[in-house]
């Protein structure tokens, strides 16, 4: 992000307040108001509001935290010289610098602080995993899974309404998705059916995990004593609240079991457990955190830290090891955090980083719309997911997301790697099976052209139809640039000019003649057209396609002249996607790392990033760029970062 100048240097002074301005410019409110008056308000104010940006509704004098997004965008376009448009009056370099300096003093050169503490409801996948860890079994939807049929195996995912993404773009940011009566009824139902199953006679395995002694194999409800009931309640409440419940609470519940036995005892026990499952302490994260009185900014307590780690890396509640480290108070030690991140990434539960975090960040669920048949869908969608899981959990450099010689493929997708596929273990279709999804194999690419890295995976190319969507996706999701909404008054894109039918590329060249359009399309189009050598299903048209799977073949195949060349707004030129990839790996490296850091941090914190997160992003980005850092480094740095370990308590009132 160019509006954050010299991040490497800044990173060194992250915690210093350094609003010093290198050269003398006038950043007084008057000068700034004149700047806006002169260069912005004509198109973005009052009557005429282009791109939903209105300077009359926002004040420079009182620029506060809430306006961060607005001024960030403004500073970006001014610095890039995207605005004012070419055909309007331009500010002098000094004026631009002054505006930039004003922005930085307000929003960049700020002290890193943590976010304000805010409890939030578990997202549906978090709730599902937490229930599974608590009970030791998944609540299943009983449905027969046959080849090529789509099933929802989880009762919870099946019955819960879909979580909307929060301001951060991630669904674990549930601040904007409050509990509703519909959700309440579902929670009540899940609690009821899970408890029925927990107490099913003759199946004591799950119940035993809540007891200090094992029940007999063919136990009956009569075998449970009130004392056992108390133990069950204590262990259950502790696991459910992700921290110990107070003795008073446990005693309070246990007295309700006194003198009961058999079915009556189990009924009372189930009721107590149901109140736990419906209480805010279970349904919300952070609700029971111990706050240090009288202190605004403070470390989160160890149990909260354990929870933050486990929901970040596993989308699940803390396991026993995290819990006991929290109990002993040692988890907050940086060394221990490093060890734990390493351990947690080796667990199969870390797969949620690919399946949930990366899927949301990169909009991978759009792949679902490409393939009708689950056989194809699973085969093609698992490629990016397996690849990302490999990057995340096997200490691979962050930049391998762009360029890697490793891919994951099965017999269904192997046609995309014609010159390397022979190395795969041969798939033999079992007798009597018409089609079958097979697990991906790791394949090292040595001779295959046009592949390697996420961007040229067939499913990624196929979910983004056409150069404009491909360009936009790359710009926003990978390079992390903000693109505003297209203006309402888009000039029509002409397909025929003077009786000549224009190619798609020519149409957009004309489109870019309009300065308003050029602001975004100068960036989008070259990226998008660089992918022209891949058809709409993601097949690489310049290599031998004879072995392509049916799903990737296209009518458009065999275009003799494919123009993939382009010029970036920076002036850099390239001939094809391979060359563009090299630009990504070098001059855009920092942007890509920075975006990865921002996305991951935002997911880890379950909230949108603010100006005061800037120094944290800068510091981690600098470190990763310098050391060619891995995803594991990134996760570790975030886990040790200030916003992850600290919080701000606004008001602590005792009433």
């Amino acid at each position, binding site marked *: 992000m160019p509006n954050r100048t010299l991040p490497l240097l800044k990173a060194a002074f992250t915690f210093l307040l350094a609003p010093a301005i290198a050269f003398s410019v006038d950043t007084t409110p008057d000068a700034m108001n004149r700047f806006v008056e002169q260069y912005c308000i004509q198109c973005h104010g009052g009557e005429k509001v282009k791109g939903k940006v209105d300077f009359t509704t926002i004040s420079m004098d009182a620029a506060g935290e809430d306006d961060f997004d607005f001024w960030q965008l403004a500073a970006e376009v001014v610095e890039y010289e995207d605005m004012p448009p070419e055909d309007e009056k331009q500010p002098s370099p000094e004026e631009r610098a002054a505006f930039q300096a004003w922005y930085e003093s307000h929003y960049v050169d700020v002290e890193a602080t943590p976010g304000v503490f805010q409890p939030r409801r578990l997202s549906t996948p978090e709730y599902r995993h937490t229930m599974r860890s608590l009970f030791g079994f998944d609540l299943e939807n009983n449905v027969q899974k*046959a080849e090529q049929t789509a099933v929802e195996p989880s009762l919870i995912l099946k019955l819960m309404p879909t979580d909307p993404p929060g301001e951060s773009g991630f669904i674990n940011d549930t601040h904007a998705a409050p509990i*509703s*009566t519909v959700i309440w009824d579902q929670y009540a139902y899940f609690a009821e059916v899970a408890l029925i199953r927990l107490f099913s006679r003759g199946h004591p395995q799950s119940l035993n995990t809540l007891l200090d002694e094992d029940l007999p194999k063919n136990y009956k409800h009569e075998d449970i004593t009130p004392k056992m009931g108390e133990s069950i309640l204590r262990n259950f409440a502790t696991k459910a609240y992700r921290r110990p419940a107070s003795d008073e609470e446990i005693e309070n519940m246990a007295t309700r079991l006194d003198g009961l036995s058999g079915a009556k005892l189990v009924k009372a026990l189930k009721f107590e457990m149901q109140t736990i499952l419906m209480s805010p302490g279970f349904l919300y994260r952070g609700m029971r955190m111990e706050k240090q009185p009288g202190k605004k900014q403070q470390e989160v307590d160890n149990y909260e830290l354990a929870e933050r780690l486990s929901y970040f890396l596993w989308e699940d509640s803390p396991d026993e090891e995290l819990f006991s480290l929290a109990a002993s108070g040692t988890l907050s030690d940086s060394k221990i955090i490093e060890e734990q991140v390493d351990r947690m990434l080796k667990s199969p539960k870390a797969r949620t980083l690919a399946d949930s975090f990366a899927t949301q960040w990169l909009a991978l669920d759009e792949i679902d719309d490409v393939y009708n048949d689950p056989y194809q869908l699973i085969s093609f969608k698992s490629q990016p997911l397996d690849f990302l899981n490999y990057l995340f959990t096997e200490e691979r450099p962050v930049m391998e997301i762009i360029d890697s010689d490793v891919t994951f493929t099965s017999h269904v997708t192997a046609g995309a790697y014609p010159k390397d596929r022979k190395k795969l273990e041969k798939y033999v279709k079992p007798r009597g099976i018409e089609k079958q999804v097979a697990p991906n194999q790791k394949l090292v690419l040595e001779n295959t052209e046009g592949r390697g890295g996420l961007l040229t995976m067939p499913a990624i190319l196929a979910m983004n139809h056409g150069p404009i969507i491909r360009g936009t996706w790359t710009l926003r999701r990978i390079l992390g640039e903000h693109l505003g909404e297209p203006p309402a008054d888009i000039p029509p894109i002409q397909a025929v000019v003077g009786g000549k039918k224009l190619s798609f590329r020519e149409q957009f060249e004309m489109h870019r003649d309009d300065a308003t359009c050029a602001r975004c399309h100068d960036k989008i189009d070259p990226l998008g057209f660089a992918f022209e050598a891949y058809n709409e299903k993601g097949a690489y048209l310049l290599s031998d396609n004879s072995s392509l799977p049916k799903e990737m073949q296209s009518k458009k195949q065999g275009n003799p002249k494919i123009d993939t060349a382009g010029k970036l707004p920076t002036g850099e030129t390239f001939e094809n996607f391979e060359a563009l990839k090299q630009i990504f790996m070098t001059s855009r490296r920092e942007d890509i790392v920075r975006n990865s850091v921002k996305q991951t941090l935002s997911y880890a914190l379950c909230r949108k990033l603010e100006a005061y997160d800037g120094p944290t992003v800068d510091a981690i980005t600098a470190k990763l760029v310098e050391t060619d850092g891995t995803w594991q480094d990134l996760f570790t740095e975030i886990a040790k970062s200030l916003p992850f370990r600290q919080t701000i308590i*606004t008001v602590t009132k005792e009433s």
Partner: protein
Amino acid sequence: MTRNWSINRRTFLRGAAGAMMPLPFLNLMEASADSGVTNLAGENTPPVRFMSLYKPNGVHPPSWNINGGVENDFRMSPLMAPFSRHKDDLLILDNMGDFGFSSHANSTRRFLSGHHQNTREASMDQLIAEQIGGDTTHRSLELTTEGLFTGQIGCSYISYGPGGERLPRESDPQLIFDRLFRNPLDIPSKRAEMTSLLDRVREDADSLMRKAGSEDKETLDEYLTVVRDTEKRIELMQKGTNRSPIKFEEIQRPPLATNLDEQVNTMIDLIALALWTDSTRCATYMLGNSNSRMIFDFLGVKEQHHYLSHFFRNFSRDNIDGLLKISLWHMEKFDYLLTKLKSYKDHNGTLLDHSVVLFGSGMGHSDNHTAQRIPTILAGQGGGMLKTGRYLRYAENQELGSLHLALMQSFGVPLDSYANAGAPLQGLDGSPFNEYRERPFDSWIKLTSNKITVQGRLVMSENLDEAKTFYMEVADNGPVRVDVSFRDFHDFNLAYHVGTPIILEGNRDEKNGQLLMTKVSDLKSVFGKSQPGKQRG
């Protein structure tokens, strides 16, 4: 009514072999008049229920078809053996459907919608439900076993709503049970429990509130609002009461099904219980998607059902055996359903007496997809709608729509036509119908040096070792064996003509002294259509 309606908790208890134990409360409903409806004569009669059970992937015709029987004198086929003990309660229909070929998706739609092109109208089960649903809690149930076949989505649905739209189906027996018998609307004790739970969690939230910062407060406020709204909803529910004289909370929840067999048995238990308790009067149940790729490993079969169903092109004796094992399992489930419906006493008879069950598939020959001689059986008297214990083989191939129309009219649905059918199917209630009669025909063989032409009846071999072999029966002569490729089998649609007289011409050969035809060059039907159409009907 002063009787105590408590139900023993052993409702779902099974014997060691997995069969249902006799239920201890069979006579409970005997005196119940509550679920009855008043007929035109002012008498209280039990409601008539409708239920449909769908078998995927057609059949192996030689194992399924009844050949040679008449209305009141017939023998059930080998595939019908599992439910043959219910013969007196069955009305077996033959010559249903008249398409050359049918896609899986089309055959699924046709099963309850009369015709595959009838895509903008409700299926017959829904029209019946609308007519007879009355004030039951659940107007209808749409059930299945399998996930969605998204590649051809139509394969997954037999029930369609008013605009012909696919109705969501449910496969989880416990979830169905909970919706039917654990609805807080019906169970006062559940409402009381939720009320005390709300009190307790409010206490908890209040204590958190005392320690909360302003952001926590906002969140807790949202939570407490929902707690209050739920309390209000429960108050409103106090007015609702269970119409049924049965205390639902005393019916035991079925255990988790661990395989397909248990899942289906449990679901059938639930269907019967739902019909008996008058929770619903209409249910449809798919044993699998139309082109089900399920693997029946609990039967020792490792191949996909759909693969095996194409028994001509994927021929082997093992495959045929596997296919028949699966088909027999389907038939056993039909038997289980009928047995179950009979086990409930309902007014002065059994539940089956007051039900109409439609069992069948969407296509006939499972390899060739002929939509002709589609397996179709009705069961139950429907309170007098059907005269059972008979085999109705119609002279002409019948539109499925005419069957649907006849059933709907019996249920009182005011319709004169449905799908492509302008008139109801005759004979279901014992009225006269145009019965299939053998018409005399000559049979002969003409030979040239390399050609053979035969007039006679085409049959499929009943020998499972040669399930892709056909024979032409010729009077006063041994049968002529027909060994053809899949191409000929398909292009001349031999499956469609099975059982009827045709003239078949092809290449002449001989094997072990028996005349043999190896390649078909022409086929003419003696009485019927020579080409039933190649439309993917």
